[in-house]
């Protein structure tokens, strides 16, 4: 079996407003139970890739915590595990704090593991991708580099600002930025497969061209001279590239067709254990069309919501189309609609909070409103 190292690339400029003020996108809560990074980590684990490095761009603390038990993702501790890769030197220097510098700073991680292939994938694009199939196709293509893409029909609504590919006979012809002007696009999922030697050569080349270049830049740059294989991924993919996108992607999982595509029996999504009891529905509970994590206590009306761990919804409270993070408390008779309530916040009963589906309101971690 080929030896593969996985890299989770957190060097993206995604900003989810308040949600990413004190944490990176990777550790933002998702569906009440997960961190966003759980999906890509589970993909690596389920693809039998046991050696995974996480290219941390910033705000490492919440990641330390989330990842402190790497075993949650079922990486074989005897064959690898999760390693945090951080480029302290450039942490406060945005122009230099990019994926290429981070990989080069931590090149020992790759050198030590001597992989045949390196798979690089971001956290903020949610997929259930079997990397082993992508690697197989990559090997068969004979190319040294592959980019994974997905054909979408609503490129005017989503993945705006992402790269799209022009593909001919399975080879990337051009890479350009999706400006949202055309519906049908072959969108890059920012997932790359490299022969290890080709990766290292490419990174060194990038540094020569411009020390500001990141991976996306250098791939576009070398496209003319190098054959880059295009691998089409046909499964579920959604990008969380803004606060509003976060809200919409979360809500889309309430559609049972979407959640069935992602939560498959043979593709578990791993996350940390929290030792919370089942959720308790009290006698005034009236809950429909919602995802509910364990440990919540609900005595109010809830619909179209994502309710996190140990959330409490008081009697008479009405919560609609909202996302309530773990530990938050919605007190009796409070009314919420289109709101994202961050961890451990408390909504007092006198409040009525209404956002819109396009612009949900946001209540900060720990706030009392």
């Amino acid at each position: 079996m080929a030896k593969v190292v996985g890299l989770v690339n957190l060097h993206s400029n995604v900003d989810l407003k308040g949600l990413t003020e004190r944490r990176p996108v990777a550790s933002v809560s998702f569906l009440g139970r997960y961190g966003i990074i759980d999906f890509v980590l589970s993909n690596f684990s389920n693809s039998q890739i046991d050696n995974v490095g996480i290219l941390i761009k910033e705000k490492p603390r919440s990641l330390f915590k989330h990842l402190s038990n790497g075993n949650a993702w079922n990486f074989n501790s005897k064959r690898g595990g999760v390693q945090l890769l951080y480029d302290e030197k450039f942490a406060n220097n945005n122009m230099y704090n990019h994926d290429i510098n981070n990989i080069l700073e931590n090149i020992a991680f790759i050198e030590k593991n001597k992989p045949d292939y390196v798979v690089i994938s971001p956290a903020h694009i949610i997929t259930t991708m079997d990397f082993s199939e992508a690697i197989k196709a990559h090997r068969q293509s004979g190319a040294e580099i592959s980019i994974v893409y997905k054909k979408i029909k609503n490129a005017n609504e989503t993945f705006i600002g992402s790269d799209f590919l022009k593909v001919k006979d399975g080879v990337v012809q051009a890479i350009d930025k999706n400006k949202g002007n055309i519906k049908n696009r072959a969108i890059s999922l920012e997932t790359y497969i490299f022969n290890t030697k080709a990766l290292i050569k490419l990174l060194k080349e990038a540094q020569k061209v411009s020390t500001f270049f990141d991976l996306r830049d250098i791939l576009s740059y070398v496209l003319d001279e190098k054959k880059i294989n295009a691998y089409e991924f046909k499964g579920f993919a959604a990008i969380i590239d803004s606060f509003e996108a976060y809200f919409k992607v979360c809500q889309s999982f309430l559609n049972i067709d979407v959640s069935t595509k992602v939560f498959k029996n043979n593709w578990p999504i791993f996350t940390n254990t929290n030792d919370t009891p089942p959720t308790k529905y009290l006698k005034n509970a009236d809950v429909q069309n919602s995802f509910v994590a364990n440990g919540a206590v609900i005595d109010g009306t809830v619909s179209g919501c994502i309710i996190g761990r140990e959330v409490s919804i008081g009697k008479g409270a009405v919560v609609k189309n909202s996302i309530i993070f773990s530990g938050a408390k919605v007190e009796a008779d409070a009314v919420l609609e289109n709101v994202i309530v961050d961890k451990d916040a408390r909504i007092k009963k006198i409040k009525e909070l209404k956002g819109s589906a396009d612009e949900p309101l946001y209540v900060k971690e720990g706030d009392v409103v």
Partner: protein
Amino acid sequence: MGKELVAMILAGGRGSRLKALTAKVAKPAVHFGGKYRIIDFPLSNCANSGIDVVGVLTQYESVELGSYVGVGTKWGLDGNSSAAAILPARERDEVGATWYAGTADAIAQNIEFLDAYDPEYVLILSGDHIYKMDYDEMLAAHKEKGADLTVAVLNVSMKEASRFGIMNTNDDLSIYEFEEKPEKPKSTLASMGIYIFTYKQLRKYLKADAKKKDSHHDFGMDIIPAMLADNKKLFAYEFKGYWKDVGTVESLWQANMDLLHDTELDLYNIKKDWKIYSEDTLAKPQLIGLDAKIKNTLVTQGCMVDGEVEGSVLFNNVSVGATAKVVDSVLMPGVLVEEGAEVYKAIIDENVIIKAGQVINKEAKEVALVSNNDRG
């Protein structure tokens, strides 16, 4: 350097009165309360009481129970100085292959295990009780009284007393007599089957009991009477709070229902940090459908509920279809209640499918048990 206290959990019984529920697993491994197994309670109590060495004695269907207990990771018992040790009935050099013949015999066959930890005290527990108890307080009482044996007791009603082993005590709670299921109880202090022994005494009495041919090798029937006869210092320790022996289908159902209403048996940590630890499954969060109505109910992750559920406990990966109705019932992991089916006052065993339109136990007088396993 010896441990102050080692706990031993008796988890070997067949649990025949749980019928089909224990056809394939030992009683302590039976699912409880939406995400737990029964043995989570004594194990979590140990962890929360600061006890770090726990032996689990197994015999009946020991594989699933053994792999569930594992090395105790789920309860934080897997540190370098802590241990959760599975102690199956086994073959040994001098005695050959011997099954556990009684509660006292089971401990007696593991004297070498205890000796290795050289404990001052040994706590004996059952693997099939639901309760939250601080054993450290009981140990403090044991030490304060200078007891040889302390028996945890529950103050039951006079009516119930004749169903229990009753400790007759003096004012200072010293025990002068033990009566098993007395017709005319003199006291209402019922033994909970939880003992703290000073290990030297326990060791001596177990060794002596092992030699007696006519002994049942049982704590209640043999060891306690022998110690009383020798005027050893036996004390009762009164436990106040929720406690239930879930030995029958009816009591297992009742204990699940108690989770919905009983304030003592609270799992939501309102009073103090006394978590019941359990395994975590990989299921997605519960998905509640457009037509769901859920009241007075515990639902755990992996469930998909689109029907009407009231007064029930739903375990991992239970599905309740639209227009289905589940009332006062316990649905074990993987149960599927199809659309329009109805279930009343029942325990539905793992992976059972209640077909569309099927109605279970509508009159709801007794607790119904539905299982894919057959057992008398």
